[in-house]
């Protein structure tokens, strides 16, 4: 119920958080639930587990475009709803971006074939993160989705993807790169005298540091982008304002393990600092709260009632059951104290959704549906 209310009216839902906490599963479950309720949903994922990817048809070649996922009968889906999933293909998205803003076919090819571009998919930092945002923007422009759920790259540093648009603006900003992109660097040291004393000095020192050849390659690379800067900048600014839009929502996903919670808190701070719209923490794989300790006698008695008369079980089963019960209880107690400590550091209790642990991997649509139903308290 709570979760449903949080998501109401949000067109773009972004799941972020540390790696290995179930961001993709959560994004898929949210998408599935919203589709079941009659909305047209696209789920954009980055790096899904193979079996989940297979069941969402993401293992196929065409997966970089929205691919329909059939909703099972037991979903009781409203007829208007539909679920599409797609996987990020950073290389082709970036290529498309270059193609869109290249001033000529020649320029496009020069960039695409540059060594740095090929090695790093663009030597520009935070490329993958930026690309995720770019793809999101493309989907929004399509105008055929009620909701888009975006699963972010597993970056350790929240800032990497939040900063990506801003950073690209900096990097392609002409004033910053002008001196590097100037053609004199292409011709090497011979024309160094045309630089001002300061620039010449900087250039010389940088050469000692990273080597003239590499500097030359890099400046050639930057030089290739000449004329495209305005387009890039415009795009990055549009993505930036999209992230701040009132119908965008960030969910921070975390496990209840301390290291994961430490990173979740860092994500929260980064979001707050950048004034991004925070929706809720989603704590994944949560066990039931601990129960009071149990006496062996109590357990033995409950197995000795007449209903179980005909059931044969090993003599020491009650003891073993008790051991398992105690183990899980201790774990549940650890989980509770971790979460209490986590929330205690906030001046108010932030919205948090507890997603239950299941007894199996979430690797197919029916299991995803079970997970979604528990998540949304259906």
């Amino acid at each position: 119920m709570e979760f449903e209310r949080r998501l109401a009216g949000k067109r773009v839902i972004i799941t972020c958080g540390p790696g290995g906490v179930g961001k993709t599963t959560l994004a898929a479950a949210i998408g599935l639930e919203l589709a079941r309720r009659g909305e047209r949903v696209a789920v954009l994922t980055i790096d899904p587990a193979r079996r989940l990817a297979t069941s969402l048809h993401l293992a196929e070649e065409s997966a970089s475009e929205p691919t329909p996922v059939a909703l099972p009968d037991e979903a009781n889906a409203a007829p208007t709803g539909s679920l599409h999933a797609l996987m990020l293909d950073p290389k082709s998205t970036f290529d498309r971006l270059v193609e869109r803003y290249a001033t000529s076919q020649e320029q496009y090819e020069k960039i695409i074939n540059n060594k740095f571009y090929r090695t790093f998919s663009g030597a520009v930092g935070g490329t993958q993160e930026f690309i995720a945002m770019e793809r999101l923007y493309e989907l929004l422009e399509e105008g055929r989705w009620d909701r888009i759920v975006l699963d972010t790259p597993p970056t350790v540093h929240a800032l990497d993807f939040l900063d990506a648009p801003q950073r690209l603006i900096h990097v392609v900003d002409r004033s910053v790169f002008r001196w590097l992109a100037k053609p004199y660097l292409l011709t090497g040291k011979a024309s160094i005298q045309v630089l001002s004393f300061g620039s010449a000095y900087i250039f010389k020192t940088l050469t000692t540091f990273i080597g003239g050849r590499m500097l030359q390659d890099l400046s050639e690379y930057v030089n290739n982008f000449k004329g495209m800067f305005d387009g890039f900048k415009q795009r990055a600014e549009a993505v930036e304002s999209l992230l701040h839009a009132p119908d965008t929502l960030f969910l921070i996903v975390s496990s209840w393990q301390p290291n994961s919670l430490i990173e979740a808190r860092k994500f929260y701070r980064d979001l707050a600092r950048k004034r991004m719209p925070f929706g809720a923490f989603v704590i994944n794989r949560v066990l039931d709260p601990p129960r009071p300790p149990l006496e062996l006698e109590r357990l033995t008695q409950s197995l000795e009632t007449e209903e179980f008369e005909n059931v044969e079980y090993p003599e020491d089963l009650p003891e073993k059951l008790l051991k398992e019960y105690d183990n899980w209880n201790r774990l549940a107690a650890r989980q509770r104290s971790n979460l209490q400590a986590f929330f205690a550091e906030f001046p108010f209790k932030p919205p948090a959704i507890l997603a239950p642990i299941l007894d199996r991997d979430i690797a197919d649509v029916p299991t995803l549906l079970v997970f979604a139903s528990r998540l949304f308290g259906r």
Partner: protein
Amino acid sequence: MDLFAKRLLFTMGKGGVGKSAVSCALTRLALERGKKLLLVQVNTPDKTSMYLGTPPADENVREVFPNLYSVNIQPPAAMKEYVLLQVRLEMIYRLVFENRAVKHFLRAVPALNDLVVLGKIYYHVMQKDDAGNPLYDLVIVDAPATGHGLQLLRLPEVMIEAVQRGPVFREATNMLAMLRDPAITAINLVTLPEEMPVAESIEMFGKIRDELHMPLGCLFVNGVYERVLDDDDERAIETLRNKVSNMAKPDPVLEHVLRTAAMKISWRRLTGRYMDMLRREIPLPAVKLPFIFDESFGGDAIERLSRVIDCDVGCPDGV
């Protein structure tokens, strides 16, 4: 394989699999063996101090316990250190590298940041004391999660190919030689018996062995459920659960106990399947680390893990 005879150990794996816990358990064991060591984290919220009971690591190398030095490498600080080693003058550093344009440029080339991180690791492995002996017996790197971790290891080769000569080329060549030397380096994999971590470690194993050609150490599998219930128990539990689910008013306590047990059985079976898969696909000495059900996970838990590792990899021909 005696990991403690090496000079440089990496702990690699997907995020959240317990790399830091394994790094800290290895750290404890190395200290017990009288090693002087440096524990390295790379640009991350500090994750080792709570396991070791030491002050948090920051960008400066510091002795946090007798013989244990600790650092959390921050690329900007490492960049400055590296540049100062080369150009020697603080004034020049400020003039050139704190120039706005240069700063943005350096930040924008992620490869350079990774290069200085690796450069710092290389520097500390090679660092000598006044007598000319290695300053540290062992450097343990709690590596960034898979994607970034692999990128870090791949970087020297990429740089050698991309640059072809000059200082970066020379540095990268030295780093690569160190990373490929089985007498110096062992790359250890850490995983959990779950789908994604297992798939990633299988993939990572192939890449490190066949593409990077770097020496692998052990496979640490965290969170392995110990078997409490045998086949007979499991069958009985299933029968009991069926009975309970058909009862009009089942005993809620019993119902919960059975549910907990059934959950554990499912997880244990899954664990078994993934262990088989790991055994099949990753031919490395494997160390199974037990799932810790304690009410807290701190120094005591790390001690227990280190005892298990000790049995497995402590002796020269172990595992």
